[in-house]
Every structure is written in C-alpha cells, then in structure tokens.
C-alpha cells in the first residue's frame, strides 16, 4: 500500500531527458501544465498526448512504471468523468432510461477531462522520475535565487524540500519496521471497525513521531558540525550550466508551446456535436 506512492520517486536511467538541466525540465513541465489547461479542442490535446508519449519514449522509463503513477488518481478521474456524464446535456442524447440521461456532449467532455488530468499527472511524475531530488531542488534554488533581493529566502525552502524528499524512503522503511514489531505483539492493523483501526495506529505513529524528531535533531547537529549556516555564500559542487543539449531542449520546448497555442487558435473551441459527427 505505502509502496505504491510514486510521487517524488527518482527512476535512474541513462537518457537525454535525465541529463537535461533541471531548470529546463521545471520550465517545460510548468508551461506544459498551463498548455494542457489552455487546450480547448481534441486536436491540441492529442498533440499534448503525443508530446507526453515522446518524452516517455526518449526517457526510456518503462510504460508500466509511468502508468503506476496514475494509480492514486484513478478515483478522481472516475468521479470527474461520472459528474461530467451526469450533468452535461449538450449534444445528441445517447441513452435516456428513467432518470439517467447520457448525451454525446457528456461523454466527450468526460473523456476530455480524464485525458487532461492524466496528462498532467503523467508529465509531473515524469519530472520526478527523470530528475533526482537533489538536482530538482538545486534547479528550484537557482530559479528562485533572484527573489532573495526582495526578502524571499527560497534557499531555506528548497533545503527543506531536499531533506523531506530524502527522508521519504527512510520513513517508509521505518513504518514497515514498527508495524512488523507491533504486529509481533499482537497489534491488528487490518481488522475491526474504523475507530478500532484508527486506535490501532497509535502504536505506529507515536514511535514514528518520536524517531522523526530524534532524527531531525541528529541531522541538524550533523549539518551544524559541517558549518551549514543557511544559503549565505554557499556554492554547489555541481554548478548548473546550460549546455548545447539544453539549448536544443529549450528550442523544442518553445516550439511545443507555440504549436499548442496555434492549434488552439486555428482548430477552435471544441464543439461536442461537431467532434461527435467527425467520430462517426
């Protein structure tokens, strides 16, 4: 159960996508998310889909792993789709039984929405799959460095993020261990009413909290011992630098953004009846 969480997981591979500058990847994913929201017709959405497929192909990450990242949001997609089908009554009526009325407009909007959400999630997980947490926060650190002039210390925030990401696997391991230990003493996490199960979590959370605070103290001490004093004058071992590959990537990103904008303008807002007619 706990091991299904893929967000924030790095999947090391030797690919061009992995080697790109994290700042470029951050820029791309942010603009891609905006573009997916701006897409107002099936053709531009299909283009976004194509871009996503291309990124997955180049990154060499197995499709199965990518799809695993979709698992936690299946419920959201399904609920959104059902709501769309139930409340949208544009287009041709397909089914009309008792109080249930399904229209082509509803179905198409549902598909559109489902696709949109899935693309968002897949592209965001691709970012964390192809970028190690350190390089990701390093990228964020650099992007937001100028804000320091107006009093926003992003270095602290990115350091907190780095540490948080670093401790996700440690915490998962710890949860597993404490659960096993309490199970050995007859704790039952799987059976009983909701209240009973919530109570059963106390023997898990108290040691977990206690150990986390202890670990935080230890880490803080270790960092202080190595002269950490915030971002002041801190340099990085692997300073980020835009290479030729990154400039080519930047060009590709700009082209993708322009293409989507053009597709949005020229293919127009999607019209349920029109598209449905095309489909038939």
């Amino acid at each position, binding site marked *: 159960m706990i091991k299904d969480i893929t967000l924030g997981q790095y999947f090391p591979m030797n690919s061009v996508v992995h080697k790109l500058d994290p700042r470029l990847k951050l820029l791309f994913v942010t603009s891609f998310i905006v573009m997916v929201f701006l897409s107002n017709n099936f053709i531009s959405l299909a283009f976004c889909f194509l871009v996503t497929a291309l990124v997955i192909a180049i990154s060499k990450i197995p499709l199965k792993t990518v799809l695993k990242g979709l698992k936690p949001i299946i419920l959201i997609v399904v609920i959104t789709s059902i709501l769309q089908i139930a409340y949208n009554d544009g287009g041709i009526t397909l089914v009309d039984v008792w109080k249930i009325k399904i229209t082509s407009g509803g179905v198409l909007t549902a598909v559109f929405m489902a696709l949109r959400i899935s693309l968002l999630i897949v592209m965001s997980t691709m970012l964390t799959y192809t970028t190690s947490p350190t390089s990701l926060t390093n990228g964020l650190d650099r992007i937001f460095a100028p804000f320091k002039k107006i009093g926003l210390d992003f270095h602290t925030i990115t350091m907190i993020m780095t540490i948080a990401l670093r401790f996700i696997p440690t915490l998962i391991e710890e949860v597993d*261990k*404490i659960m*096993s*230990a*309490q*199970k*050995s*003493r*007859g*704790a*039952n996490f799987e059976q009983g009413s909701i209240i009973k199960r919530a109570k059963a979590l*106390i*023997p898990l959370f*108290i*040691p977990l909290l*206690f*150990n986390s605070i202890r670990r935080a103290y230890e880490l803080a001490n270790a960092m202080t011992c190595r002269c950490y004093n915030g971002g002041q004058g801190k340099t990085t071992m692997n300073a980020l630098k835009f290479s030729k590959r990154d400039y080519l990537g930047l060009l590709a990103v700009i082209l993708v953004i322009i293409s989507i904008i053009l597709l949005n303008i020229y293919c127009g807002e999607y019209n349920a009846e029109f598209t449905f007619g095309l489909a038939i």
Partner: protein
Amino acid sequence: MSHLQTENLTYIYGAGTPFKITALDNININIEKGDFVAIIGHTGSGKSTLVQHLNGLLKPTDGKIFLDGENIHQSKSKLFDTRYRVGLCFQYPEYQLFESTVYKDIAFGPTNMGLSVTEIDERVRKAAKYVGIPDEMLSKSPFDLSGGEKRRVAIAGVISMEPEILILDEPTSGLDPMGREQILDLIKNYRETTGNTVIIVSHSMDDVARFATKVIVMNDAKVDLTGTVDDIFENSTHLQDIGLSVPQITEVFIKLREKGYPVSEKVYTVEQGYNELKRLFEGSVNND
C-alpha cells in the same frame, strides 16, 4: 516431531520485478523444544528475514513453516495464535515503545491477547522481574529511560506474552559491554527458569558461543552449517571465508596450538581459557 520446522522455505523480495532479490533460498531447519538456538551470519545473509517468517510476519514465496506440526499459514486465527506463541523481538526494539508508562507498554501484548486484568498484571510484573526492571520504574514514561533500560523494557514487552519460543534479533547491538552482559545474562536466566525455546540472531560469535545448544550459520540466503558450537567452530577457516569469525579467545587458543602448545581448541569463553591455561601451567593438560 519438531517444535518449529521450516520446509523448503524460500522468500523473494520484489518477486516479478527487475529488482528481485532472493533473501531465503530453500531453508530447512528444525528446532526442538528447549533448544537455545543461535542464528549467525553477516549482514544481508537473510537471518532477519528468516526469523520474520518464524512468527508469520512474512509470508513465504515458497515452502512451509510448521509449529508443532501445524502449518502456521493454515488460517488467519492460526496466524494470530502463532504471533503469541512465537514472540519476536526486533533489532533496536527501544524504538517501538509508545505508551505513557513502562507498565502499559509491557502490557500491550497481553492486552491484545484479550487476557483478564489480573492476568495481565501478573504477567507484566513477572516479565519486568525477568529483565530486571524494578517496580518503581513501571510508572515512569519509557521515553525517560536510558538506552539499555529501554531495550530491557522492550524485551519485557515480548516476554510478557509468555511465548513458547522467544526470538531476539540482534539483542545486544548498539549497547556498551556492560549493557551487553546484562541482556545476555537475562536471556540466559529467562531460559533456565522457564525452559522455553530461545532463538538469538547475531553476528557476534563471542555472544552466542557461551550458551547456544545449536548454531545455524546463514550465508548468502542459504543455511551454510548447522550443529553444536563445537561442530561449527571446527570449521574456523570456512567461517572466516564467509565473513564470520570464531570468538577472540578461541582464536588465541588456535594460535597457541599452532605454536605447539598442548592446549584444547575448544575454548569459547574467557573462563574456559583461564582454566585451560591453568592446566597448561600446572602441567596436567589433557591433550584431546
């Protein structure tokens, strides 16, 4: 019929993924009632995975585990029953304490077993006595205790379930020599008083050589050797090959023998060594 027995026990982590690791490979072990078993092996040899199978925490990929001849995965109730009959105390058990008082923490297991209040009280006090926790400490918060005390409280939390088989995973790791002696002594006393089966997982030969009636050596997910302490330490070179060693005092006596001194190599404790040397100097060495 063995008390606890495994049959072709195999366990694979991440089966069906490219990251699969065989942690246990065809393990067949027999443990009799009253045995004092030591499972030794270097880090990653599969010893911790093995003991987590013995009380049903992990489900084997292949093979079976029998407690008194019955498969422990037969039914869900059988599995819960097994957890109480085979008490497993994890490595660094002090990190699992959670209750507001030592008393309540030791009582966690017996409470889960659904025992009566008087029965629980009796067991908590008995377990506390075994591990040398004085009565006045029972009302303290477990988080206020020292490391060694916490460890003893955690061990008491398992003993209080009165398991027929007590398993301790690296019970002395991270303790100073005195803490180690205390823990090993209490385990020895516990076994002598109750006559229950005890299994200790360790990588330290010095710890196990003194008490174990049976030693299981694990290497690379397999059982490498089984036998008495004497049987195992006869293979001292083989032990060194797989990253283990004989007790330091045994090493001294092996070296002495190599130098031509008529001493026994079967010396596993300092006390035995002292007696052996005394015999050597008094000139009455039995050369066996």
